[in-house]
């Protein structure tokens, strides 16, 4: 996935990836990534958990806007099934 991100970035379009495999994301050199230490196949979290899913999207869009170092990996440290989530403050992306 990081390789696809690099190809897109190379034509001038910024990317942000969600990563479940931190070392692989770092090795491939994805331009920007939010890492969540969750099971494979669950980049946005649990099914029917919209607040959790939207929180991950918020972190990704925030990183898209504010990252200034190529290859940055944001690590919010969310635990699997042991967090409670609120609706993100989307006005912070305005």
């Amino acid at each position, binding site marked *: *996935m990081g390789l*696809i991100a690099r190809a897109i970035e190379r*034509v001038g*379009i910024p990317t942000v990836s*969600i990563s479940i495999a931190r070392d692989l*994301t770092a090795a491939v050199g994805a331009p920007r990534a939010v890492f969540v230490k*969750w099971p494979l*196949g669950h980049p946005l*979290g649990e099914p029917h958990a919209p607040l959790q899913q939207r929180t991950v999207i918020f972190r990704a869009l925030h990183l898209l806007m504010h990252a200034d170092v190529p290859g940055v990996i944001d690590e919010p440290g969310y635990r699997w099934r042991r967090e409670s989530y609120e609706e993100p403050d989307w006005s912070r*992306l305005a």
Partner: protein
Amino acid sequence: MGETITWLQKLSNRIYGIPAVAQWWARRAAQRSASLDVDDDAIPFARLRKPLSTARGVLMTTGGVHLIEQTPFDMETPQGDATYREIPVNATPAQLTITHNYYDHRDADADLNVIFPLAHLQELVGQKVIGSLAPRHYGFMGHIDGELVTTLTQHTAPEVAAKLRADGVDFALLTPA
């Protein structure tokens, strides 16, 4: 799709579904990828050139998502499948399916937002957080190895990048399997 998964693959997917095991796999894969040398070393880096509220986004996943009527990804070739499927922006979850035997996608089958959050992005456009979405989004099958990595980096990915440019895309959100 699901019918073709062996009990061994199911067991493997269960084991790799444990977060710590997934990280162990990532370390191994990272060591292997160092020897692939398919790319130059500098990380390309573009910037968002406009406010998010006027920007056009695209969603891409390597989780094997595609329209039910599209040709499924090839699960027989050991090196994987470096092709992709275009997913129209108005596709509903009921019109989409997942062909990817190398991870446990039962949760993503139950709620596609777990891996392909197009519905959330559409809501964010409605909330005016994001300006708009591209007319087409993309499903890949991320389990790619050997010379197909070169196919991906030299042909498939640049082809999609050109389509994003043609569609006026300002940023891309990528999700893995």
